[in-house]
């Protein structure tokens, strides 16, 4: 094996270990944060018994889940029942592998290590496990794999509640997958590339995509909530009707795996939003962070973490604010609103980029500001004209659509 190859492998393994550990510890702390945020929003202090400020609560939960009894329904389908938690857990872990967590670190490594031997690495080291050229396509592909775990868990439990939860999950995730994929096409149009590093570079040159691609961000965010099965779209769980949905029959560590998968999904989705629409590791109003260096890498990682953390908090914030959707509202929102909106938006953005090219504004900054202007108009149209009880039909409106028959029956 050449020293260059060894260097690449060694650094990749190190990055893998560091990011995996960070994710696992982060997920553990997020379970605490979720409960803390829930408490604060209800004027409670949240868990505060285990350790200072409740910091050891995840440890206590972990120990509890390890020593709990594993129950298995007698009629459950053995192999699949055991496999399902892993199937939802593994894609959730793999998602974070492609997201750049900081500016590339310029490295000039030429050392001889014991056991490994001569190791060489020269050039910028991307701070992600794999800087894949297929970028967010990988994320879309893997996040749709997550539905297998959920659907199989629901089916193999051989329980009606689990089955209903699994069915809902698969229908919901597949529906929103479409809107999610389409909402990312404007990002592709803007940056001309699907690789995360190229998308970040485009945002550094122009504007963060939240401005020029606001509706795309909006659709992506809603679809992301549906993809992670979080409130207001947590119908697969729906504890008021389905006990606990697809993981009703799971206990102990198998149940924990579902929870870890859900929280790693939240981390990944927040990282995606931060990367695609908020400049990734970019520190705004300065070009210092693009020069490269150890300090720059650390600072940009801080910036990335702050953005990601805000969106993680946002997910929890939404969860403790909004009630759950009705199932027909969920489907109507996905297919009748987000999908056409995403398609129309692709047309608008493609047309605008072509128009900007025709007008001779082809530098990233000119293009971004031109699209920002377009988005103010489009956003106004969507939020002030379209959104007047038309986006999600209430029961009242639905009865009027039928011709007021139901209302007459009730009033009579």
């Amino acid at each position, binding site marked *: 094996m050449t020293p260059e190859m060894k260097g690449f492998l060694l650094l990749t393994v190190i990055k893998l270990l560091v990011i995996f550990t960070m994710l696992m510890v982060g997920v553990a702390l997020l379970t605490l944060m979720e409960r803390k945020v829930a*408490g604060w929003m209800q*004027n409670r202090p949240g868990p505060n018994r285990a350790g200072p400020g409740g910091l050891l609560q995840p440890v206590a939960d972990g120990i509890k889940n390890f020593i709990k009894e594993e129950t298995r329904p007698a009629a459950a389908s053995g192999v699949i029942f055991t496999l399902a938690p892993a199937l939802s857990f593994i894609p959730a872990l793999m998602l974070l592998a492609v997201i750049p967590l900081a500016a590339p670190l310029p490295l000039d490594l030429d050392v001889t290590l014991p056991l490994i031997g001569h190791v060489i690495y020269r050039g910028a080291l991307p701070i992600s496990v794999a800087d894949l050229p297929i970028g967010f396509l990988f994320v879309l592909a893997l996040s749709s794999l997550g539905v297998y775990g959920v659907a199989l868990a629901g089916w193999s439990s051989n329980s009606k509640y689990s089955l209903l939860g699994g069915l809902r999950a698969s229908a919901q995730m597949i529906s929103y997958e479409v809107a999610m994929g389409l909402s990312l096409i404007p990002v592709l149009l803007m940056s001309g590339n699907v690789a995360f590093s190229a998308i970040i570079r485009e945002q550094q040159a122009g504007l963060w995509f939240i401005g020029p691609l606001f509706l795309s961000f909006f659709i992506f965010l809603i679809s992301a909530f549906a993809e992670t099965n979080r409130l207001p779209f947590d119908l697969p769980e729906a504890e008021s009707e389905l006990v606990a949905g697809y993981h009703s029959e799971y206990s102990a560590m198998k149940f924990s795996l579902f929870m870890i998968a859900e929280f790693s999904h939240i981390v990944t989705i927040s990282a995606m939003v931060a990367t695609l629409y908020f400049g990734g590791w970019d520190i705004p109003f300065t070009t210092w962070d693009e020069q490269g260096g150890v300090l720059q890498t650390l600072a940009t990682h801080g910036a990335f973490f702050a953005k990601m953390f805000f969106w993680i908090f946002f997910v929890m914030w939404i969860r403790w604010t909004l009630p759950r959707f009705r199932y027909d509202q969920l489907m109507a929102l996905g297919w009748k609103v987000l999908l056409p909106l995403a398609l129309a938006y692709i047309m608008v953005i493609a047309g605008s980029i072509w128009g900007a090219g025709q007008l001779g504004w082809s530098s990233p900054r000119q293009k971004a500001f031109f699209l920002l202007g377009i988005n103010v108009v489009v956003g106004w149209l969507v939020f002030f004209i379209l959104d*007047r009880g038309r986006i999600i039909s209430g029961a009242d409106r639905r009865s009027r659509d039928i011709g007021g028959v139901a209302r007459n029956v009730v009033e009579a």
Partner: protein
Amino acid sequence: MAIGVKVMHRPADVSYVRATLKGMALTFKHMLQPKVTMQYPEERSTEEWRIATRWRGTHRMMTDEQGRSKCVACGLCPQVCPANCIKLVPGEDEEGNRYPLIYEIDEFRCVFCGYCQEVCPEEAIHVGVHYENAEYSRDRFVYDLERLSSQTHPVSTLWDPSDPRGQ
């Protein structure tokens, strides 16, 4: 639509985005407000909340200066007790003073009506302002005379008809 389904009449021009933003502002405001939880084992009463003086909890037997119970074994409390939870065997010493040989209250049977305290002519048996009664075995809930006498918690001020609201 099925018969009997309740139809909510919502205003037709509601903006969902604005309503969502309003709700989020509300929950965020709540995050910054002071927390109202009382940290129970550490604090048992706060300035806003304390246990009511009319609370009727587990019993307490009053004692005189010599540490003997005030009870004269008149038998009124077992007579008035609707739950039949007081067991009283009267005794008499050489001077002719009656005293309880056995005085037991089964706190599981007790309905905490407070009649025993009301009926007692010697102001001996009282219901207490007390609620932490956990025990490791069921027979520990039959309180004998010694245990009733050794309680130190405050006693209930029963309802006073002339001052019905406790002012």
